[in-house]
């Protein structure tokens, strides 16, 4: 785009540019379609060639003769002399609206808004899983059986229960007694959420995942080796970006083994994946 020196009127400058463009070309194809080639200049100054192939279908419609006559009326007022068809300055098409009448609309709408409210309330609360740093409670973590919590595997704030067993306190200065040592050390402590007992034998831990990865990308990649029951991609709560590691569970351990072998070292995004079997939390 050459800027004409000494001219300040941008409107005329535009005109000069459009003159240099090739004329619109319309080619009639053998199969009845038309190819329209138009040229334009983009905002960044690049010349763009647009090729459109269109097929015209004549739809015949019986209309009221009065209506048909009115369609032929000449335009007047501000529209005087304008060509037929809607003008872009006054008429545009809005985005699609799904309108589906339903009985009991109000109740269903209220339900929706209530659910939304709950969601936002959850969002505001600071919840962080100690295992995967996701925004859920540690007990709800899908990997609580397969992974140990990040860092120290201790539950420092969970000592309310300990006070109920005064006999177990006061040993060696620290008042905290881990749950599995309570009641005379009998029993290994109950597992929380026992019904979510998962077959961690078929779960893979994938690390060095690109931070732009999506769960669906992983699912697509890993479902090549067998039925994937679950994909979990750890994401940062603030930015929504991946944290760099994920878990993939298979229905079958042999599929998992195959995937582990094939996908370890696979290039995804700009990084090389590291895949291994998830270690069971102790």
């Amino acid at each position, binding site marked *: 785009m050459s800027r004409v020196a000494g001219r300040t009127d941008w409107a005329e400058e535009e005109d000069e540019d459009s003159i240099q463009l090739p004329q619109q070309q319309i080619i009639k194809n053998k199969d009845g379609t038309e190819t329209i080639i138009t040229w334009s200049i983009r905002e960044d100054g690049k010349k763009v060639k647009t090729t459109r192939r269109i097929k015209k279908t004549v739809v015949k419609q019986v209309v009221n003769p009065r209506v048909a006559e009115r369609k032929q009326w000449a335009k007047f007022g501000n529209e005087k002399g304008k060509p037929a068809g809607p003008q872009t300055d006054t*008429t545009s098409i809005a985005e699609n609206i799904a309108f589906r009448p339903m*009985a009991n609309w109000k109740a269903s709408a209220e339900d929706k808004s209530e659910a939304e409210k709950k969601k936002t309330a959850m969002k505001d609360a600071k919840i962080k899983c100690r295992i995967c740093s996701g925004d859920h409670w540690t007990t709800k973590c899908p990997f609580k059986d397969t992974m140990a919590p990040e860092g120290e595997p201790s539950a420092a704030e969970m000592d309310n229960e300990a006070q109920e067993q005064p006999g177990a306190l006061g040993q060696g200065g620290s008042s905290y007694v881990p749950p599995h040592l309570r009641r005379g050390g009998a029993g290994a402590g109950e597992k929380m959420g026992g019904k979510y007992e998962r077959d961690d034998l078929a779960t893979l831990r994938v690390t060095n995942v690109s931070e732009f990865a999506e769960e669906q990308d992983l699912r697509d990649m890993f479902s090549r080796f067998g039925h994937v029951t679950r994909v979990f991609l750890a994401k940062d709560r603030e930015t929504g970006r991946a944290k760099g590691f994920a878990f993939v569970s298979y229905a079958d351990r042999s599929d998992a083994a195959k995937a582990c072998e094939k996908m370890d070292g696979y290039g995804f995004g700009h990084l090389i994946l590291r895949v291994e079997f998830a270690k069971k939390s102790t």
Partner: protein
Amino acid sequence: MRPILLSGHERALTQVKYNSDGDIIFSVSKDHVVCAWFSHNGERLGTYHGHQGALWTVDVDPTSTLLATGGADNTMRLWEVKTGKLLKTWDFATSIKRVEFSPDGRQLLGVTEKRSGHLSTIVIYEIEPDVDAEQTNEQSLRIVCDESKATVAGFSYLSKFIIAGHEDGTVSQYDAKTGELLLNITVHEDDMQVTDLQWSPDRTYFITASKDKTAKLISTNDLEVLKSYSTDTPLNSAAITPVKDYVILGGGQAAMDVTTTSARQGKFEARFYHKIFMEEIGRVRGHFGPLNYVAVHPKGTGYCSGGEDGYVRVHHFDKPYFDFMYEVEREQANL
């Protein structure tokens, strides 16, 4: 459905109307200009220039040859639909809030505003339904509303009655020949203005919208309230849909409060209620200001709404709209 967005006005829309065949939409706004649009594609047919003030109302005669408008420049004007030519101007002491043709197109009704020294009136002119004819200056009837000012009015079936809605929430029935007040009934809450009155296709009943957040379906003969639709926002307009038994209500909080509330809370949606079961069945969003008027295509294939945001949105209903039925309706249809 994909609404067509008409952006020919620079200020808030005050009324939109379909002609009797539903192919043309007329819109008036506070920007002094009347626009005519083709309803099927949103193409603007033309504009009518001449008014010196905000326009409040528009109506077209049944043959789509004459157009009447009224506005804040204290005039009521008659136009030729086809060319945009001004045919006649009637001057008044106050602004015109509502105009309406009679069902046969031979009478034109105007509602004048109340202002210091002037009471609100409903005036009627005999109209020659011919573009070249000289229109009369003489009012064939003049009804003075001394109790509470009239805000809306219209002709009943066969031009037998004139029904008017008032500022105090009442609806009154006048004899269209003599102008005698036959009935006056409080249908809306006290001192809650009736903002709109639209007819059923046969004009034996009508719907009123009010600032008291309700719309009422009222019979023409005895002004009995047949149905009541309550919402959570002041209503500006209500329309009855032919073909399907629905009503469409439009509203939103007052224009002065708009800037302080978000579009989400503003309730700027067209609400669809089932006419008989009085239950809300859906909403159509899109405007970012209150809806000042909703008009339904006379064949029931679509509707358009004019908003305080200056846009007219033309909607063509699609299949789910026509398919929807209540269980009892479906049973009835299958019999």
